[in-house]
């Protein structure tokens, strides 16, 4: 049998529903996952060539019972019962993305580049580099993205010929405009913190805002927006790659998660398990809002970062004080050694002089 029994439930669900469920908003991970699943199903006769998979959306972290859920479910890996399948990344177990989990399960080949960077922004790609494959992938078909990945173009600048070949010339121009506008707004909303770090607290959505900010050396990015209903706010706070959000921010986020917990245990507030992101509402949870005014939320975020920075600065001062004491002790010890060495030198010179005199007399 071509397909192992482990996928029996998956096959049944595909035939039954011809649907996958994923989060709002597309990224490389969910695009690649849907594409791979559909291709695998067609190649194995589970779907006909003319069939298309319907994509339904749920807020991030949520799961739709009775369906195949891809790249949603809270980044806690894959699970399955007789009714529902979840295929998702699990960073704690080394499964970086949904596409990695899916490729391993279906035993299909996926270009390495896609597996490496599906759910993470590689540090070697700069957002100022509007010609890179990854920054442009959302503007072209997923088939093209896979071709680009095979050529290992996702983390490289595309040439004029490649931009033309993948239909990305206009997209690149538009990206450049987006970056230029982001830089201007970021400069306006950046706050220098007392511990030497900096944060953007933006009262408006800035397209590509966080990745541009990090490229500018800013450590954290916060964006607050009025909810589409006109009441309440949504917000997102991120840390630069390599950093985590301060404890105070995560603590505030966890309190909000609890405050806005639904009966099914999910919440409109999400604190990423890797501690780099706190999101309330937004594209993946479009109906959710926090009951605060925009001004109050901005002030709250400002206060949280200011408090964190002050505590961090005090901690740095204590570290420097300890280092000062260590260096003072080292200086004292060296002074003593120097004194002893000088005494030895004097003694050695005295002996030498005495022996010189003896030799002369002899």
């Amino acid at each position, binding site marked *: 049998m071509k397909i192992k029994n482990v996928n029996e439930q998956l096959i049944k669900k595909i035939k039954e529903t011809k649907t996958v469920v994923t989060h709002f908003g597309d990224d490389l991970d969910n695009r690649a996952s849907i594409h791979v699943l559909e291709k695998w199903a067609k190649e194995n006769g589970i779907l006909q060539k003319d069939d298309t998979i319907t994509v339904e959306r749920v807020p991030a972290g949520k799961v739709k019972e009775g369906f195949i859920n891809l790249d949603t479910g809270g980044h806690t890996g894959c699970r399955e019962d007789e009714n529902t399948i979840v295929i998702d990344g699990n960073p704690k177990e080394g499964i970086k993305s949904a596409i990695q989990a899916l490729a391993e399960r279906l035993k299909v080949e996926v270009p390495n580049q896609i597996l490496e960077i599906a759910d993470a922004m590689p540090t070697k790609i700069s957002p100022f580099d509007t010609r890179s494959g990854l920054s442009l992938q959302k503007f072209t078909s997923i088939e093209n993205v896979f071709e680009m990945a095979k050529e290992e173009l996702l983390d490289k600048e595309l040439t004029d010929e490649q931009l033309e070949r993948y239909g990305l010339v206009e997209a690149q121009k538009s990206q450049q405009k987006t970056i230029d506008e982001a830089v201007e707004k970021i400069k306006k909303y950046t706050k220098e913190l*007392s511990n030497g770090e900096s944060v953007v607290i933006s009262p408006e959505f800035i397209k590509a805002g966080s990745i541009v900010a990090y490229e500018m050396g800013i450590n954290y990015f916060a964006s607050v927006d009025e909810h589409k209903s006109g009441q309440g706010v949504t917000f997102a706070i991120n840390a630069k790659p390599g950093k985590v959000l301060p404890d105070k921010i995560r603590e505030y986020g966890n309190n909000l998660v609890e405050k806005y917990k639904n009966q099914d245990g999910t919440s409109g507030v999400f604190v990423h398990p890797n501690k780099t992101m706190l999101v309330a509402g937004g594209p993946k949870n479009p109906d959710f809002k926090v009951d605060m005014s925009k001004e109050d939320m901005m002030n709250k975020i400002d206060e949280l970062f*200011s408090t964190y*920075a*002050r505590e961090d*600065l*005090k901690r*740095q*001062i*204590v570290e*420097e*004080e300890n*280092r*000062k004491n260590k*260096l*003072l002790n*080292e*200086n*004292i010890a*060296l*002074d003593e*050694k*120097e004194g002893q*060495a*000088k005494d*030895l*030198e004097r003694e*050695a*010179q005295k*002996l*030498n002089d005495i*022996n010189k005199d003896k030799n002369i007399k002899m």
Partner: protein
Amino acid sequence: MKDISVSDNILEIKENIDNNINYILNGRKIDELSDRELMLLKELYIVINSQLQNRVEIKKEEILRLKERINNIIRKEKM
């Protein structure tokens, strides 16, 4: 602040450091300082520690030179 890396008297160095730190603290605890004062205090510590580190390097080199001189004297003695 006087450059302590060239000072030979460790007691003077300690006094110099304490005076500079106390100038910012002005009888207060760290918690009572403003953010600006905390930043100044941190900068001060960085300068102090940099000079103390310099002094360590200078002293280490001086001790090596002294040891070299002692060895030379002993060599001459054996000749």
